[in-house]
């Protein structure tokens, strides 16, 4: 059962941040609530003050600028991202990822900011956004700052947010030319969280060798992680089976997955290898065509 709380509904971002700096630890923020409400119902999360920012003005938008890139307000729903013509055009990997996230119902109400702040290592958006070089703009009553997503996750369900900060915006730079990003998760049911998930983005040189590689693993460690050793094996290389194998092996070794009822650690590492090889290959081939 949910413990009783005082319900506060600010109208603006400023009001929200003031409330949070006032109540600090005594308050929790709800936006879509698709992760939070389950925890509250199970008694795992309880709070005296609940600050509802779902309808705060100025947090719900999808904008693109050829210099600044993509900017999405934290309260933008998954469904809006999934259906956005702009995102389908410029960041198709995001729309595809959203299409397989949870369920339509959850996507209609849950938000990108809430999802990222929840810091679930099995969450879908984080690895994809990481490979796109994304950052989050976070703010408190006093300050705003930009945190690269690579630095945003610090521990199991833990972000770099200070106790009076919330996520305000997700920023994705304009993709480089000759680049592509892809994502796949391994699960038994299409919209389940991945037992393992791999996102990969490849940027190629003119001769189709690898200029930059970003590989992000989902549910392979306490936090979403970059497979940096795997990335390094790829830089400067040509696409061939041996290179893919090397990247796959590297990723499977630097991953830190658990064993649970769904899969053993061994099998998870195997999936990291297989999916990394597949995603790198797919991103590479798409980047080559995109040129």
């Amino acid at each position, binding site marked *: 059962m949910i413990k009783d709380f*005082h*319900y506060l509904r600010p109208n603006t971002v400023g009001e929200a941040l003031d409330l949070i700096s006032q109540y600090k630890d005594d308050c929790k923020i*709800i936006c879509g609530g698709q992760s939070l*409400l389950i925890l509250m119902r199970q008694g795992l999360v309880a709070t005296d003050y*609940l600050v509802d920012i779902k309808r705060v003005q100025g947090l719900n938008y999808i904008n693109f600028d050829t210099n600044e890139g993509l900017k999405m307000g934290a309260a933008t729903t998954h469904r809006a991202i999934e259906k956005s013509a702009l995102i389908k055009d410029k960041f198709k990997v995001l729309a595809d990822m959203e299409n397989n996230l949870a369920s339509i119902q959850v996507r209609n*109400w849950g938000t990108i900011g809430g999802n990222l702040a929840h810091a679930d290592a099995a969450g879908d958006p984080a690895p994809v956004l990481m490979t796109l070089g994304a950052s989050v703009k976070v703010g408190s009553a006093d300050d705003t700052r930009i945190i690269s997503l690579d630095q945003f996750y610090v521990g199991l369900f833990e972000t770099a947010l200070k106790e009076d900060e919330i996520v305000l915006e997700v920023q994705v730079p304009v993709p480089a030319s000759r680049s592509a990003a892809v994502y796949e998760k391994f699960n038994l049911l299409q919209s389940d969280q991945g037992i393992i998930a791999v996102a990969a983005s490849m940027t190629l040189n003119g001769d189709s060798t690898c200029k930059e590689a970003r590989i992000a693993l989902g549910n392979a460690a306490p936090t979403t992680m970059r497979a940096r050793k795997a990335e390094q094996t790829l830089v400067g290389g040509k696409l061939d089976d041996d290179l893919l194998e090397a990247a796959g092996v590297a990723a499977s070794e630097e991953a830190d997955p658990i064993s649970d009822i769904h899969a053993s650690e061994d099998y998870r590492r195997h999936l990291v290898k297989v999916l990394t090889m597949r995603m790198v290959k797919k991103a590479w081939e798409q980047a080559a065509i995109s040129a």
Partner: protein
Amino acid sequence: MEKHLLRITVNEQEYELYINPKSLLVEVIRDHLGFTGTKRGCESVSCGACTVMIDGMAVKSCSVLAMQVDGMNVTTSEGLEEKGQLHPIQKAFLDHGAYQCGFCTSGMLMSSKAFLDENPNPTTHEIREGIEGNLCRCTGYNSIVRALDAVAKGNYREDKA
């Protein structure tokens, strides 16, 4: 705990309620307003039996604070019929046997309506994705897919009645 005023329209009827702010939308619908068509089948936002439409969007009402729906329009399965005339989706469900025990049906109907309103010409794969958030233990889903496909193909248009 202080109660909050909630103004909500359900099935085109306006309501004013004072509720404990921790009330979930499904609790307001079922317990406060007595619309028991909408069901609950889990605690993990997995089964979809509680699906309703909020301003035309399919949402799991067990996973929404009622206060967040203040001033919005909710539709439940009881709101599909129009003066006793069944909605095309309801007719299609009857014709195709797209339910058995019926417990998932209200939620399934609302997901279906929201989906077809948004995507009136879906492929069968898209229909399957459209109801992916709703579990059914009885039908194996295929009869539901056939029913929705028939609606999408125009078999239940008013002019064909």
